[in-house]
């Protein structure tokens, strides 16, 4: 890990008006959601969205603008640079998540909601962090293979396609004719699709150990593949 890259990544985010505005929005929504009966019901989704926005820019745009050539000419391993960027972005998302949790906690305290529903709130906080890390790792892997913001396009496109395929498969099974009959006899097909969707595109949920382990494994594999691809990738200089 390279502290300079982590610090610079965080500095860039916290000097961005857009990022600061997003933090303020998260805080306001956390306050608003503190009136809901279910703790941690809104801001975790916004944290996941933030991880897509920030994670998509980890390496692709630098590749396109030509900034990456300056980086790789410096004495830093490419994989170290990549993982340091991931760490910096994840730290920013974690701080955003803490803002959401803090705002909801403050709101509940102001409303006299005592005792605070800590188990559910901390579980949602951990779930948001884990899901965000998964999103960032997937976007980093896709970014190590593509340019610009194509990683986000591929990620969102694949996620939408997976949802659509599952919906179509479900409808076919309910109709029960032709391929639908086959699906009804083989429920493993639908379960497999759901598992792939869940492994690659985890949604924010309460923490459970099996889910956390699955996320950790997927993150580790995605980042290992990203590092391998980025180490071998050619970086011809000149912008797009």
């Amino acid at each position, binding site marked *: 890990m*390279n502290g*300079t*890259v982590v610090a*610079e990544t965080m*500095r*860039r985010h916290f*000097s*961005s008006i857009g990022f600061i505005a997003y933090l303020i929005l998260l805080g306001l929504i956390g306050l608003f959601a503190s009136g809901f009966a279910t703790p941690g019901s809104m801001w975790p989704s916004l944290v996941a969205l933030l991880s897509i926005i920030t994670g998509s820019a980890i390496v692709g745009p*630098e590749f*396109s*603008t*030509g*900034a990456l*050539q*300056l*980086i*790789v*000419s*410096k*004495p*830093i*391993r490419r994989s170290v640079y990549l993982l340091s960027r991931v760490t910096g972005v994840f730290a920013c998302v974690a701080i955003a998540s803490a803002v959401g949790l803090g705002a909801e906690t403050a709101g509940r305290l102001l409303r006299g909601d005592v005792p605070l529903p800590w188990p559910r709130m901390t579980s949602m906080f951990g779930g948001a962090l884990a899901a965000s890390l998964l999103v960032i790792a997937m976007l980093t892997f896709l970014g190590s293979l593509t340019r610009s913001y194509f990683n986000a396009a591929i990620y969102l496109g694949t996620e939408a396609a997976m949802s659509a395929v599952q919906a179509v498969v479900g409808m076919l099974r309910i109709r029960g004719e032709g391929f639908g009959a086959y699906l009804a006899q083989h429920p493993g097909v639908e379960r497999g699709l759901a598992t792939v969707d869940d492994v690659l595109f985890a949604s924010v949920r309460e923490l459970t150990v099996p889910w956390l382990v699955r996320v950790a494994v997927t993150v580790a594999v995605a980042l290992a593949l990203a590092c391998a691809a980025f180490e071998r990738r*050619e*970086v*011809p*200089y*000149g*912008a797009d």
Partner: protein
Amino acid sequence: MRVQSGGMHVQVGGMRVQVSGMHVQAAGMHVQAGDMHVQAGNMRVQAGDMRVHADRMPANMSDRGVHARGVRKSFDRRSVLAGVDLDILPGEVVGLIGPNGAGKTTLMSCLLGFLHADGGKIAFDGRRSDDLGVRARTGFVPERVGVGRRISGWHFVRYMARLAGVPRAEVDRRVTAMLERLELAGAADRPMSQYSRGMLQRAAICQALIHEPDYLFLDEPSSGLDPNGVLLVRDLIAEQKRRGAMVLLNSHQLSEVEKVCDRVLFLRGGVVARAETLRHTDRIVMAVRLLGGKVVTVEGRDDAEIAAAIRRLIESGTDVVEVRPYVADLESIFRGNA
């Protein structure tokens, strides 16, 4: 005195003059001259359609300096580099010239490790280009700098300096000094999105030089610079040379290449089509204009040898009109090889 025509040969004392189709090979050096060659002891005079195939002894890959042997690179089966040899020695500035598509940028990318060469060897003081120790001693100025829009010039140079290994305790002082040297101090706090092309180029030069690299790669460093900036770049290259750095300059500005480079490699069709020494570190080269307009060059280890050679030329009956330091005419070379 002996005179031969059809490959004319004139000899006066220890001096020989040969005209047309001459070919000399000695100690790994290969010189061909279409017109005229004068030799006296360690002194040589040559002119006309001179062609130097290799102007130094082939270096070992483990020797000090940047060495490349037989570097090949293809894109989609199209060969861009077809076996390039290159040597840059400490304190030497080598220019890379050639027409568009000749492979200059590809060669620089292979040397810097941005691209993986399909074949051949590249060594920096005997080490691979992807060695972190080599990269810590490498500076690179791209033709165009692409950076985040919000980052200020000061932060950009500081970030690059830290990545290059400049110690935390020194970095702020060095960044400030370098920005002042490149006349960017007044704009240091401004976002780089507000910088002009020339200011971006100055920032790029700052980040390349701040860690005092031993290997310096410059891709059109003067592009977008005003005349003051061009002069500044010229001074900075001279400083790096004095410091002992090895500099590779890729530029289309032949006048700039002429002014700062010791040697020039003319790349064409993915190979070094011609190598020209502009400045010799071990000898003096003078251009002598003869009556009738013909120009010959006189080489000597010191002024005394040059004076003796010119005296012998005059005593042999040659009408000498002008003697001045020899500078290769890159424009003619470019026109002749493009």
